[in-house]
Each structure stands twice: as structure tokens, then as C-alpha cells.
């Protein structure tokens, strides 16, 4: 039982950190980095907590579904992140003080 609470607390913490990151980070790319933070541990924690609780209730169907929701979120989110990042770059969104920019060197924006 305590494990469930701990997991949920972890999830909340990371979701909170991610939210703060999205709100605070200087440019769009760094915000994306932070948003993956939300998507991974922020959700995983809470979903695993719910999963354990569902097992504790002996509700197997529910537990399996929760697990697969977690899997789907984890699998879909990077695809979206990748697509949006690429789109941002193609769109010419300004990035703050890039240390190095291999991509811009190889694919100059016309």
C-alpha cells in the first residue's frame, strides 16, 4: 500500500518538475526536453501505482489495461516529440545559444 503512495509521489514530483521546466525553459527545444520528463516518469510513477493497486484489488483486466496505457504513452510520445522538434527546426524557431549545430550545418534552412 505504501508502495503505491511512494510511486504516485514520485510521479507527481517528476510531473511537477516537468511542468516547471516547460514553463521556465528558455527556448522551445528545451521545453520539449522537459515535456518528455512529464511523459516518462511523471506518468509512469502514477500509472504503476494504479497498476499495483488494481492488482491488489484483484482486478486483472483493469491492471493489464493500465499497463498498456503506460506502454502506449511511452511509445507514442517520442514520435510526437521527434516530429514536433523537426517541424520547429524546419520552421525556423529560434534556439537560444546553441553550442554546436550539426544539423543546421548539414541541412541549411533556405
Amino acid at each position, binding site marked *: 500500500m505504501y508502495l503505491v503512495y511512494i510511486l504516485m509521489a514520485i510521479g507527481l514530483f517528476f510531473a511537477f518538475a516537468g511542468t516547471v521546466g516547460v514553463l521556465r525553459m528558455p527556448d522551445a527545444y*528545451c521545453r520539449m526536453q522537459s515535456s518528455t520528463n512529464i511523459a516518462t516518469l511523471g506518468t509512469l510513477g502514477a500509472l504503476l501505482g494504479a497498476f499495483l493497486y488494481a492488482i491488489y484489488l484483484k482486478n486483472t483486466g483493469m491492471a493489464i489495461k493500465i499497463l498498456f496505457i503506460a506502454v502506449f504513452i*511511452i511509445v507514442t510520445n*517520442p514520435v510526437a*516529440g521527434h516530429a514536433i*522538434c523537426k517541424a520547429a527546426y524546419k520552421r525556423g524557431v529560434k534556439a537560444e545559444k546553441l*553550442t554546436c549545430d550539426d544539423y543546421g550545418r548539414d541541412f541549411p534552412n533556405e
Partner: protein
Amino acid sequence: MKPSKFNSILSTFIFCYLFWIIFTWTFTSQELITGAIVSLLVAILTSRFFIHEDANYLFNPARFLNLVLYIFIFLMELWKANVDVAKRALSPSLPVNPGIVKVPTEVKSEYGLSMLANSITLTPGTITMEITEEDNKNYYYIHWIDVSEKDRTKAGEAIKGTLENWVRRIWK
């Protein structure tokens, strides 16, 4: 190697049927039979998309085991990276040092490439922007929140860690 039609449909069918069972989660005969019919239809429709090279990749037990192990290792990596980024986001001075680096990789197959790319994207702090091919070698372009190494190979090791080897064990 071109996958044979029957094998690809069969593996897609099993994949679909698994999901049907998960969605319904009631084991009456009606549900199971309907699910079989539906999965067969879906398998015939989508097998040409779903199967890329090898029709029975996951039926190889070693690969399957690797996949399961990979999940745990990946979770470890995830934990580390998450803590790191959370620290950065919450610290008052926002210590970021972003950049886009080009990283070579050894993975060849489509599923493997995108799996590794997704794993990289999922670990906070890095996002794959593009996969390209130069001289029969694949490269990732990765946006990295804290560029500590500008050299390609070293940066690649810092980012990919041990993940690449695991991915290569699952896919080609």
C-alpha cells in the same frame, strides 16, 4: 529477405489477437471467436505495413528475452536522466547548454533505428531530430540539453550508453 505472405499475416494476426484479448479481457467463446475473425481481417489489411523484414522476429525466444531485459535497463537510464533534467528545471539558475550533435550508429533495420531513436528521445535531455544515411552508415541528429562532448563518437557514447548494444541484440 522478403517475408513470406503467410508468415507475415500470421505474426500480425497473433499481435492483433493479443491486443483484442487485452482490450476485452473476458474469455467467453463469443468474444474469442469474434476476436479471431476481426484480427484475421486486420492482419490481412495491415500486414504489409506491419512487417518489414522478418516475419517471425519476436518468436525467437532470445530476442524476446532481450526485449524484456531491455525494458529494465531502459528504465534505469530513464531514472538517471529524469533526475538530471528535473534538477536542471528546478534549480534557480537553469544550467542548460543546448546544442545539436550528429551521432553515428551501427543499427541497420528500420524498427531498430526507430526504437533506438525513440529511446533517445524518451530519455529527458535528448531528442532525436532526424535519421540520415551517409555512405551506408546511419546517423542521428540529436538535440542535447547539455552538450559536454563535441566529438561525435564520444557524444554518442554519452548519449546512447549501453542502449545501442541492447537494441542491436533485439534487432539487426
